[in-house]
């Protein structure tokens, strides 16, 4: 592992590269998409509600009802005056809620009827809604990751396969989930690596990938910085060419800039690589052997000083070949 940056970059690229592409592609989707449509709200409308006055004869809840209650609200739910007792106040509506609802005129427990839910759903849908099914669903909800409360699911018989989710606690429409929204959900799942459907990004898998990706990108940047002088040189210095000096075991080594148009033996002297030579470059002594993975012809001098096996392994004499013909070299 003579080039740790290249090594790290290559193997991390193999591990996290696919996720990096997923992040880029899903990112482009989020950047490009119209979020109102992608969230399933193309046909969603807010229902105008008229405030009904509270009736004269609302009853007061018995004191025992207030034990452990964090908040009590007197309001209308589906045009019915109700008390709602909140036993917890979660920071987000998708978190588990603990609410009891009582009819404010009778004091009896109150919940939405299927018919009311149907009306709420239809009123939130700007086209004619043909409803084929209404059911109270319990978490986890396939369509809504991270939702911890039971929700009414109203199935609309339309081409986009819209499901309208209504909260049994507040009577409010939580979401219109149609095919556009389902695609959006998949994109979010991929972007957050949220395969456990938690609805969030605070989990170990994405943390590991994020850290590995940082190392991947960092190693790439450092590698680029290391190679930058070479690359700039290669572009701006005419008459010179980069050559890779391989390790003796054949693994990749360092790069050097050497003069073009000379025989290898002489060209390498400019970077202080002095191959042994007795005859001074005549092809007579056979001392200046080198090896290259590049394909080179075999000269008479090569044949005279190198065995057939050596020739087959790319061994030649440095005085016989131009530096222009090779890009990689290893020397004994």
């Amino acid at each position, binding site marked *: 592992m003579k080039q740790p940056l290249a090594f790290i970059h290559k193997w991390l690229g193999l591990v996290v590269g696919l996720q990096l*592409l997923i992040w880029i592609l899903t990112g482009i989707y989020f*950047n490009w998409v119209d979020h109102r449509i992608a969230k399933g709200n193309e046909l969603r409308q807010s229902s105008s509600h008229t405030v009904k006055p509270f009736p004269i004869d609302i009853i007061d809840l018995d004191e025992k009802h207030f034990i452990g209650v964090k*908040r009590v609200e007197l309001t209308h739910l589906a045009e019915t005056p109700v008390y709602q007792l909140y036993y917890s106040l979660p920071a987000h509506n998708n978190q588990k809620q603990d609410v009891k609802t009582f009819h404010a005129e009778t004091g009896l427990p109150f919940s939405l009827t299927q018919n009311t839910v149907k009306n709420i759903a239809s009123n939130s849908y700007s086209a004619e809604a043909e409803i084929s099914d209404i059911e109270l669903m319990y978490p986890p909800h396939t369509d809504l990751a991270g939702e911890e409360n039971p929700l009414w699911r109203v199935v609309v018989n339309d081409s986009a396969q819209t499901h309208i989710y209504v909260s049994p606690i507040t009577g409010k429409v939580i979401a219109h989930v149609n095919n556009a929204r389902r695609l959006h959900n998949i994109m979010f799942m991929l972007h957050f690596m949220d395969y456990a459907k938690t609805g969030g990004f605070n989990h170990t898998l994405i943390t590991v990938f994020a850290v590995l990706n940082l190392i991947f990108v960092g190693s790439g940047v450092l590698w680029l910085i290391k190679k930058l002088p070479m690359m700039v040189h290669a572009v701006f210095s005419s008459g010179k060419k980069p050559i890779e000096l*391989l390790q003796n075991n054949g693994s990749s080594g360092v790069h050097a800039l050497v003069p073009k148009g000379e025989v290898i033996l002489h060209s390498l002297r400019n970077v202080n690589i002095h191959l042994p030579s007795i005859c001074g470059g005549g092809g007579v002594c056979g001392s200046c052997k080198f090896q290259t993975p590049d394909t080179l012809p075999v000269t008479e001098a090569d044949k005279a000083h190198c065995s057939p*096996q050596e020739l087959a392994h790319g061994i030649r004499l440095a005085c016989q070949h131009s530096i222009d013909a090779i890009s990689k070299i*290893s020397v004994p």
Partner: protein
Amino acid sequence: MVLTDIHFIHGESLLKPATPISSPTVPFSELAKAYPRADSVTLLTIAKSTVYKVEFEDAATHVIDAKTGKVLAPISTSKALAIAQQSFADSRYADKIKSIHYYSETDSPPSDVSPRWLPFWRVEFDAPLSPTLYIQANTGEIVSKRHDMWRLFDWMWRFHIMDYDDGENINNPLLMFFSVISLFGGVAGATLLVQRLRAPQATQKGEVI
């Protein structure tokens, strides 16, 4: 971003958990008679006192003392301070107030809070991460809680979506430009990787020397 707990970022740990209400002296039925046209009447605890919050459809709000039935005046400086100190979770710093400032409906609010809560009090604690509570001036409710990690996260979000003015527009052309370039980079990198893994380095042949 994935390393920091999003609930911590939202400042959910800055406040003490809500305390249960005590049963009101003035009953709901009287409130319903007094304000039949209200959208909702809510009984809640604000800084140890139980109050009714009466909300109307036009967003008008009254706050009424549940013991006396009197309409309460907007929150004063000392009341805002008391609310902030009694709600702050970290008792070591609860009485260390760095600054308190009132923002009226016509003021431009600080960038880390929504203008829809105006008018409000801004109370900053002299504590690590400069925790700040925003207290709605009419109701006394804590409408927003911020600290330096939230502010940092907000900037990270702007970098994430490359929207540097208000951090709200994901559909911006700058992000499209750079993400498409990144896609080219990513595909080129993947191609290089496949090539490198498929064809073992030519140099590996020369193991004789």
